[in-house]
């Protein structure tokens, strides 16, 4: 089926079978590879993108359900002031190790700070629980989110 996707403010006409996960359209059709494949079952969060401003797992979001929605990926999140603050904090704190999960971490963290500009450590843990990092950079993710919160407050 032909679908019109609005991704990072641009409209793309894509051809995909119903039931195709948004993840694979973003990665294999649009060749935007910042959004990662980690598990395919919404258990790791590496594929997190925003759908109308809300973080979703793109591996479990189907193409026929996103027509007309505004999709945002890591490639455009720096245009969002929260996204930019998180990216700055991520560099300041050297959060990343292998880095493969970090697009998803940042996309989820944008969702958290949008809802809750000054989260406590426990609130961060609760919100970010679904984003796995096999390198275990968690303590820097927590610190990075708190640092971004400070940047945004300033």
């Amino acid at each position, binding site marked *: 089926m032909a679908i019109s996707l609005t991704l990072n403010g641009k409209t793309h006409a894509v051809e995909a079978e119903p039931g195709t996960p948004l993840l694979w359209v973003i990665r294999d059709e649009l060749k935007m590879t910042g959004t*990662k*494949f980690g598990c395919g079952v919404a258990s790791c969060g590496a594929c997190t993108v925003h759908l109308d401003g809300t973080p979703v797992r793109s591996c479990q979001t189907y193409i026929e359900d996103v027509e007309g929605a505004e999709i945002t990926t890591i490639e455009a999140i720096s245009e969002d002031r929260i996204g930019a603050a998180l990216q700055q904090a991520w560099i300041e704190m050297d959060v990343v190790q292998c*880095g493969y999960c970090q697009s998803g971490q940042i996309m989820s963290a944008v969702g958290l700070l949008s809802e809750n500009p000054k989260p406590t450590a426990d609130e961060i843990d609760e919100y970010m629980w679904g984003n796995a990092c096999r390198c275990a950079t*968690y303590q820097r993710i927590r610190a990075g989110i708190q640092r971004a919160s400070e940047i945004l407050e300033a």
Partner: protein
Amino acid sequence: MTINTSRRGFLKGAAAAGAVLVVGIRPNGALAASGATNLNPFVKIGANGSVTAIVKHFEKGQGPATGLSTLIAEEIGLRMDQIDYDFAPSNPQVYNNTLFGPFQGTGGSTAMANSYLQYRQAGAAAREMLLQAAAQTWGVEVSTLSLQDGIITGADQSAPLGDFVELASTLEAPAEPTLKDPSEFRLIGNPDVRRLDSAIKGNGTAMFAMDLHLPNQMVAMIARPEQQRATAVSFDDSAARDVTGFINAAILPNLAGVAVYAENTWAAMQARDALDVTWDTSNAENRSSDEIEAEIRAALAAEPTYNVNQADVAATRAAIEGAATVVEDTFYFPLLAHAPMEPLNCTIEQTADGKIILHDGAQMPTGPHMAYAEIFQLPMDQIEIRTMLAGGSFGRRAPPSADYQVEAALAFIMTDRTRPVHLVWSREDDLRSGYYRPAFGHKVRVGLDEAGNIVGWEHRIAGQSIMKGTPFEAFAVHDGVDHSSIEGTADSPYQIPGAAFGLTDTEKATSTLWWRAVGHTHTAYVMETMMDMAATAAGADPVDFRLRYLAGDEADQQRKAGVLRLAAERAGWGNAPAGRSQGIAVHKSFGSYVAEVVEISGNAEDGVRIEKVTCVVDCGVAVNPDVIKAQMEGGIGYGIGHNMRDQITLTGGVVDQYNFPDYEPLRISDIKEIEVHIVPSAEPPTGVGEPGTPPAAPALANAIAAGSNNMRVATLPMDDNGVSFA
């Protein structure tokens, strides 16, 4: 160090390339420099002053891209924002790991240890040549010049180093470049040095092997048997043909699976699911993990095959029999998967002139390089391996069999080779078709005298050897003993009276592989929980008790005692807040000494919450302190997460786990805080990728015991053996 003094190539190259200075080593090992491009460099400097470190180790997050660049930048005299990096091509003569012989690869936490002098020398040679060129240009003595922040200064002049690249590229490399004295270091040891790969990994532009989309590429996935060693007999792809984007399917030449080719990843996944394969399971592995465990436990009950430390076992037993108190336990460690975040994958293509290119997050480039020479019947120089960023590994990207790269090659040779093939594994493939940390068992009896001192320590180990039957056997197996099965026991810095270590190999049950910290993943747990149990039985403080066996004046004991004392001090050992319990462990691995204190609230019955981990590491010179801290943090998480709740089990040879819901990763909420301290040291740098892992789980186990009426967890994972987590 000898220098290749042939100037012909240099001059010719200088005339041709003109404005590139490269410093590296010739295949004979000699440091050399040239304007030519026929040298495999460690550093490349363009006329515009751009400096690129050529990094011979792959980057899976452990930091060598930053680390080796730091060495070059330090010795040349650059700021970190004045250097970039590229990954070296595969070349086992030039880019070998000097600790591995003529083999390029990353493992055993050796990246910095084997590169520290090599990359500093290359940077120092470049600095001396640039200064020499400036001295000639300005007509001054070289000793009057200095190079800092990329600027050469002296004789009332200053100019960027790029101005001298052309002339420098015609000079010969100094025979013995003078390395900076540590007192002059601005970058090495500087905690403010940041990673060079942070920005690209935070904005989605970092290119992992999974992200490669070569023009016209196909995606291949492999339908594999559920049981190891089953073979493909036939398949029916009629349902797969209904999948849009499905191209074809074919049985691999080694019968190990059926390759499914498709236009994209999703089509490959669907088509593979739709494939109906008939397998021959007559020679397939059909054992269950319960049988593996029973075999290991039986081996522990019998006399060990190997007397690892040539101990007088009879004397040890007599000492234990005569002891005032005997402490004993039997341990079991299950199979574990590595589960790096980026599932295994690589892309293979053939160029118009017949060369093969592999794009891979290559941990051991020489492995697939040699395998490809055999598969494609090509000389090594007709095969190129382009190393890309790797989304984690923990050892998984480095099996001696080069399993996934060979799979890609086999899938590729069945095509007409006009289209690149991107082999992709799913998470299920990763957990179910993989290589595992072998299951191991230990049985330990410790005898204490009236004063609570150890008089005998009989320690049996049983499990499947990782190294036997691989090309690494000669390197790692001596007198029958696979060192990776026993490392961290008989070679421990502890001076234990009457220690007798025995090993029995058990049968091959599945494919096993080094897994972050290898043998130390189980030996540290046993050594450190037994030490704790012995201390408790002796009525002694666990730190004081360990120090009794680290009283020797060798550096090995002193350094281990040093991290232990410092960890206790930094963690407020013995002064835990009300409601909290502490456990400690200390272990040496990969040349580094690490002590960790885990502080928990709650207990095994009501739920344990890990409040804080305090870590002290002595890894020699700390090149990038913040990277070292990050590796300790990650290593602690890796050790704790798996031992809390992960295991791979088999039923009739079939892996029971499918995806992360059955192999639950450590989550952000599991550890509330980690604090890392680095011991200042002038010793040569040693490993940091692995040494943080071994002490973490035993420190947690000891904290749980302290908070739960001395309850001991000897069979892992913890949550399957009586411990609940909050």
